[in-house]
């Protein structure tokens, strides 16, 4: 018998000795505001989600600060999503940060103009941003300034347009392959 011994139980090997407990969004916003001034907005709420809007031109510096301050220690970019808001003429980027040290979450938001959507890359802060930003570039057309490899990720390189934009219209064909299907039900019935 070659049974594998049980792995360490819940109490052993826990690397959280220096954990100081989580901070809430308001406290984090205050820290950011003290450091970056007008580039950091107030705490806003989308009903169930509290977030802080920041300037896309220095989002990389803000993120670096959030990662490297010991009482913040946001070591993980859990999610990065883009939302097209044509009514406001904006594309919103939502950064969901998480700290494995303090086990707290913080939502950052960058509002960027729909006509020229751009933000500084945070690839140098969290490696995960490389692909997450490529995905948003691909599907929403946001330019991440300073990104090392900003290419389409999911769609072919020669695809036209950004499908997750609300006004996206699918091309009728791609390399001679039709994207529309004619149905017999749309034809007049034969007499």
């Amino acid at each position, binding site marked *: *018998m*070659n*049974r*594998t*011994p*049980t*792995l*360490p*139980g*819940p109490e052993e*090997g*826990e*690397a959280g000795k220096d954990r100081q407990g989580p901070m809430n969004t308001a406290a984090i916003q205050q820290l950011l505001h003290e450091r970056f001034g007008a580039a950091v907005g107030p705490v806003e709420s*989308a*009903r*169930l*989600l509290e977030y802080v809007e920041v300037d896309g031109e220095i989002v990389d510096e803000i993120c670096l600060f959030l990662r490297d301050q010991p009482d913040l220690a946001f*070591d*993980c*970019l*859990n*999610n*990065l*999503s*883009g*939302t*097209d808001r044509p009514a406001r003429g904006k594309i919103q980027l*939502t950064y*969901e940060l998480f700290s*494995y040290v303090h*086990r707290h*979450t913080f*939502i950052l938001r960058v509002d960027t103009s729909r006509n020229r959507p751009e933000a500084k890359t945070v690839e140098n802060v*969290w*490696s*995960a941003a*490389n*692909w*997450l930003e490529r995905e948003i570039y691909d*599907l929403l057309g946001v330019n991440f300034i300073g990104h090392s490899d900003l290419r*389409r*990720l*999911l*769609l*072919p390189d020669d695809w036209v347009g950004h*499908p*997750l934009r609300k006004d996206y219209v699918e091309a009728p064909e791609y390399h001679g392959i039709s994207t529309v299907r004619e149905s017999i039900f749309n034809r007049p019935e034969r007499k």
Partner: protein
Amino acid sequence: MSLELEFDDGREGFATEEMTLNMGPQHPSTHGVLRFIIRADGEVMRSAKADVGFLHRSIEKIAEKVGWHGFMPYTDRVDYVAAMTTNQAWAMAAEVLGGVTVPRRGEYCRVIAAELGRICSHLLAAGAMGMDIGAITPFTHAVRERELINDLLEELCGARLTFNYMRIGGVAWDLPPGYPAKVLRFLDHFEPYVDELDDLLSNNKIYIERLANVAVVTRERAIAYTLVGPNLRASGVRYDIRKHLPYSVYPEFEFDVPIGAGLHGTVGDCWDRYIVRLHEMRQSAKILRQALEGLPEGPVIAKVPRNFKPAAGEVHVHVETPRGDQSWYVVADGTEYPYRVHIRTGSFAAMSIIEELSRGLMLADLVALIASFDIVAPEVDR
């Protein structure tokens, strides 16, 4: 072509030329349709660049077109190896936005379905791990056991792969008569089988040699790349959404969160990622036993209007799928269609780290690396 080349400085001898190799998109060991462009110097890789998107169906855009209830079957296709947990994530996002409370029996049904699904997925992962590096037999055993779970899940919801079992507000059907006893019978059979798989595979000398110390992911790298679930825990981070950001009725159950310990090599190597999954199957069995024992009576689904229109708002929902923390960002604008859905999956993060890990790795170890991350291609592409 002759192998003997002359160097620029006039020295004579053997020189190696860098090769560019294509792997995939059709390759039996790549776990779905994905492609790597490999630059290799002999057997050693300089880099393996992933080319993904072959399975991109723009599922997130479909969500904006089909409505809240209508999107449920599509979530099965996000991760078809473990559809129950993706079902659950979508249902939870809609429930949080719409303020729906799931009846307790409904939550228990979800946990039973989700944990059976987790065992199912981990069996495939563990079996495929062996097969990818040349041990065929354990795979056939794992798939044989997985069939039993497929039978159980088929009895529960009529499907063996794309379950579409959960609904906003609960689950579609109550457990069939005699179901808890049947699942218990399966667990009695299954728990000794995990030990058998352990004997057969885990400590096999060749298996260890192929996996221990291969493609080590440190704790810091794992977090920076947002590795989640078993891939993160193998690097020594004890974090499981079911335990640390609890949802459903998971706080009522007792279970451990196994982490990698570098038993045969270094913490965070391929072997650790494998063994964490093996241990998790035992933990899932433990949860299942508790859920079956504490199963309450009552309805399994809350009253949710057919024309479901949650008030405008945004939410992040996290669910522990077999491939780790799946993060759903869902925006509602008060209509019967979701305004935006974004899914950050475990396989997506794992794919993005492969290029960095591949540098200096042996070519033959690339399949071991992909298998150890338990990557499911449609989950990357969505």
